[in-house]
């Protein structure tokens, strides 16, 4: 082989190798670049991981700091979150609770009737958001068999379905508040009972004295005794109201239902109040129904209390020479009693609060009022127990009309 042919071959070989080196160099450079990128991506991931875990820790910390028990369940009602307050309230450690069906650990009841999980934590197929159940004063039985009173709220979030999150239950322990409330009621009811005995004596002796001395007394003396008598009646009404409130609050108010002739009861109540109306120079009128009304099934004592309360209010808030009118109406299903006065009327802003406990209209009305802010609250409770409704229409300066309905129960009902 000639010499120059061999060197040409060598040159070709060298060139090829050079080309290959260049390719390799480029590949090495690319790999290096990719390595840097990968490194960067890795550290970014690491950072994200750290922040996610910090976030999760933060959430767990926040949840453990929440004083209300927070329990989250998945779409199968299995517990996925159980915070520290939940551990304390229920007596179960989170480690034992997580993954368990909620019904195995949490027993919620109201008046010793169990509320099923589907009721207090309904899992809806639609993407409903917000509070799906809320109830105050339900009972929870703890791991140690202890009964605690809680306010329960169950909420749902829109993304819940995607994240396999069925509901978030919050339980607020109200046991202590309940106990305090009980003590308060005990005290009120005890004090009221103790007041009844001397009041019975005052009322009794006064009535006997007035009865036996009617003809021997001068006009002014009669007026004095009348006022003492009215004040005693007010005091008795107040004590009775306090007792009724403690019954209402304890839900121990019971009805002794009878079929009664309601217009006849109204007549009697009005008759009893006539002396007082005259004393205050007020006209008290009952427009008797022209045709006979069907009998209603009510507790005559309780419903008389309602009428008495409404009439006493009307008499109290109507200035002399005014008029208080009572009439009946029927819409077929209900017997409606209206009590209209020509009194001062009730300010518009006070109307929505009128039937709440201890509410007293402030301002001008308050000065002359002798009420406790309990009468209308009790009236509402009693009327509602009978299945009726109570409402008011009033204009300041023009008087008020209070009305309540009582369902007419037919003989077969």
């Amino acid at each position: 082989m000639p010499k120059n042919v061999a060197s040409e071959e060598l040159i070709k070989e060298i060139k090829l190798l050079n080309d290959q080196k260049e390719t390799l160099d480029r590949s090495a450079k690319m790999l290096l670049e990719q390595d840097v990128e990968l490194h960067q991506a890795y550290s970014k991931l690491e950072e994200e991981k750290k922040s996610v875990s910090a976030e999760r820790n933060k959430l767990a910390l926040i949840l453990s700091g929440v004083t209300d028990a927070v329990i989250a369940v998945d779409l199968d009602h299995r517990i996925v979150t159980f915070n520290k307050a939940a551990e304390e309230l229920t007596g179960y450690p989170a480690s034992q609770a997580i993954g368990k069906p909620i019904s195995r650990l949490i027993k919620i009841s109201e008046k010793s009737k169990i509320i099923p999980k589907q009721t207090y934590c309904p899992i809806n197929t639609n993407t409903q958001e917000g509070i799906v159940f809320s109830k105050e004063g339900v009972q929870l039985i703890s791991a140690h068999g202890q009964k605690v009173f809680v306010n329960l709220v169950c909420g749902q979030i829109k993304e819940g379905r995607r994240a396999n999150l069925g509901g978030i239950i919050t339980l607020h322990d109200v046991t202590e508040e309940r106990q305090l409330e009980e003590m308060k009621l005990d005290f009120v009811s005890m004090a009221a009972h103790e007041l009844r005995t001397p009041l019975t004596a005052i009322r009794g002796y006064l009535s006997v004295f007035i009865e036996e001395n009617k003809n021997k007394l001068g006009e002014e003396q009669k007026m004095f005794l009348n006022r003492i008598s009215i004040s005693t009646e007010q005091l008795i009404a107040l004590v009775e109201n306090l007792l009724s409130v403690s019954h209402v609050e304890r839900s121990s108010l019971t009805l002794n239902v009878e079929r009664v002739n309601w217009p006849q009861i109204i007549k009697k109540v009005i008759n009893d109040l006539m002396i007082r109306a005259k004393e205050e120079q007020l006209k008290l009128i009952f427009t008797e129904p022209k045709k006979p009304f069907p009998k209603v099934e009510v507790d005559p004592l309780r419903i008389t209390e309602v009428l008495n309360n409404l009439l006493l209010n009307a008499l109290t808030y109507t200035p002399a020479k005014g008029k208080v009118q009572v009439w009946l109406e029927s819409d077929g299903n209900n017997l409606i009693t209206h009590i209209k006065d020509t009194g001062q009327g009730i300010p518009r802003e006070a109307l929505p609060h009128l039937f709440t406990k201890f509410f007293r209209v402030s301002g001008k009305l308050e000065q002359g009022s002798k009420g406790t802010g309990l009468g209308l609250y009790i009236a509402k409770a009693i009327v509602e127990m009978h299945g009726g409704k109570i409402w008011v229409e009033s204009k300041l300066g023009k008087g008020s009309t209070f009305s309540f309905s009582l369902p007419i129960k037919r003989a077969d009902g």
Partner: protein
Amino acid sequence: MVKKKILLIEDETFIRELYIRSLTKEGFEVLAASEGKTGLKLAKVKPDLILLDIMLPKIHGLDVLKILKTQPETKEVPVMLLTNLGDESIIKETLRMGAVDYLVKVRLTPSQIVSRVAKFLKKLD
């Protein structure tokens, strides 16, 4: 006409004396006791009606009622409860135990009480 005999068992002196006066004025013969033990002893004379207070010292009115309703010599005597209790469960319990009626003292004047008593005794005749 023979006077109707009423036994009043009531511990509050003011109230007891007030009712004795009103009942006597209406023509009843009244026996009175301020606590259960004396009341039970007096009940053996078989009055026409017993007016029994619930909140009594020493022996509670409910226990007095129980004894009255089990003793052969008093079990037929009608008993009307005098009460100032708002607790309806106790009232219902006394009616179940055989009391004929109950009178809430604070809600009634003495003359209203006398008229309830007279009405009841008239119905018995």
